[in-house]
């Protein structure tokens, strides 16, 4: 008995070792292509961008020299970069509150009834996935100073109109309106998901405690329970606003008078139009730090949300 058992064990052990060895090589073999690609296409470029930011390199130039933090010091006093950063922040501050409020309102209204739910959800989600390059052209036509539907409608209501996208005082709000249009359906979908996981017993408990009206339920249960979702939506919409590029590059090219220069557009023109590569890389580093710190914040909130549920 003992003999057989140990022979079995030995066979099992040999099998197990062989399997482990097979696993070991299979693990390496199966993840090798992805590892090489990640190193070549993600890690190396990220290191390179920090390196290039420390040089005075101009794309196409044969030589370059190490200039330390000079590019970053130049950024600090560059009025154009300051303008671009300011525009990005203003754009985000214009887009964010309206997008979150509108997304939340639409989600609450859709969930408050039964009819046409799927239709409303689809209608509001269409802008999220539609090709922005094509939609930007349609928006340009909507805001056209003579044939634009919106301009005509506002004029007929007696509102003073202007060439919205060519006027340096209205261009950023006009682009923000397009940003709100593009993103509020996205906020809606995330809020709908957040509403789905609120336990129904909470509403019953609130009713027992005397929360009778729909407004009371909203104030005592729905909104507090949506807290984590709201934080999460806020960060995602901020990220998407900081990454605005398509509308600016198609409709305004940063103009008029740099009134609609935003971070990513400046990054693009410095790096690829003016070929000031080192300077463009420095802007890229600033952009990277802004975006990754927001993403880290998002992950921490996600973690907390998991514990919460």
């Amino acid at each position, binding site marked *: 008995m003992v003999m057989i058992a140990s022979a079995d064990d030995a066979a099992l052990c040999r099998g197990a070792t062989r399997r482990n060895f097979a696993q070991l090589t299979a693990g390496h073999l199966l993840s090798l*292509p992805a590892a090489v690609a*990640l190193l070549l296409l993600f890690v190396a470029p*990220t290191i390179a961008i920090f390196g290039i930011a420390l040089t005075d390199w101009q794309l196409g130039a044969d030589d370059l020299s190490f200039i330390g933090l000079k590019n970053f010091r130049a950024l600090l006093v560059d009025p154009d970069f300051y303008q671009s950063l300011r525009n990005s922040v203003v754009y985000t501050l214009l887009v964010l509150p309206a997008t979150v409020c*509108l997304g939340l309102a*639409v989600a609450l209204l859709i969930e408050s009834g039964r009819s046409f739910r799927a239709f409303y959800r689809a209608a509001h989600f269409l802008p999220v*996935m539609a090709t922005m390059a094509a*939609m930007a052209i349609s928006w340009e036509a909507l805001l056209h100073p003579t044939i634009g539907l919106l301009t005509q409608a506002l004029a007929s209501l007696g509102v003073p109109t202007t060439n919205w996208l060519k006027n340096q005082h209205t261009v950023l709000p006009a682009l923000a309106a397009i940003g709100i249009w593009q993103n509020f359906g996205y906020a809606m979908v995330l809020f709908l998901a957040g509403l789905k996981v609120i336990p129904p017993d909470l509403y019953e408990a609130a009713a027992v405690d005397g929360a009778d009206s729909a407004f009371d339920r909203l104030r005592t249960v729905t909104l507090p329970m949506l807290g984590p979702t709201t934080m999460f939506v806020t960060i995602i919409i901020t990220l998407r606003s900081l990454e605005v590029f398509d509308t600016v590059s198609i409709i305004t090219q940063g103009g008029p008078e740099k009134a609609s220069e935003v971070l990513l557009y400046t990054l693009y023109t410095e790096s690829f139009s003016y070929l000031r590569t080192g300077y463009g890389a420095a802007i*890229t580093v600033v*952009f990277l730090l802004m975006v*990754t710190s927001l993403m880290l914040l998002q992950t921490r909130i996600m973690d907390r949300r998991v514990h919460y549920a």
Partner: protein
Amino acid sequence: MNSLLHLTRSAGRHAILVLTSIFALLPFIWMISLSLKSPGEMFQSAFSLWPEHFTAVENYAQAFTSAPLLRFLLNGVFVCVAILVVQLAICAPCAYALAKLRFRGSEGFFALVLVALFIPHQVLALPLFILCYKLGILNSYAALVLPFIVSPFGIFLLRQFFKAIPDDIVHAARLDGVSEFGIVWRIMMPMSMPAVTAFAIFSAVSHWNDLFWPMIVITSERFMPPSQGIVAFHNGELGIQYGPLMAGAVMIVAPLLCAFLFAQRKFIAGLTLGGVK
């Protein structure tokens, strides 16, 4: 009394939602409306959504003949399919290794995937442009595909799903003599179809819509994907002709919209998952 209250509340709900729906749909409606009209009618002061003289045929025909619209669309299909196929071929085996196999360095490697997940793609544009230049592939399909052949999000998502598949199934397959490679494609992938679909939709929609990267590496109309193609049309000499331009824009938005209307839930799942990455 109660039913009256219910009725007003329901009417209020629809009134507001119809208004916000109009806001969401207006650019689509306007785009289609302009694509049906003649130039003369567009500049008339009296406004209507439906054209008096139906010029759709002329506008759409001109969009397809005066710009290589069909080429842009086919480029889009080709590039999106190529990216997705290579992404799955590279990410799926790696996700399986991370989910089910124990090997040296697997933890460090997974950390690398997580770090890559945090890097926005625009940050990589400059070094990747230089890489494409050195490889001599600027202005080619290869330049459009290369930066996206590996997706950290794809690895992460598939790994999550593979992990949920019971180990017993993997053991049983090994006993049946299925190779590790076979397990990935014949067991893991078919059992994770919801994740694969969500990722496929996320990948295809992002690359169909992407404008930033094509603007950096493509200058010839031959290789332009749809988004860049419509911008070239818009900036070209025919860009002032709103009828054909809008017809082109409609054609470029239409494929994704049709796909969305057929598989709404899957699209919403794929695109929200992608943003949450």
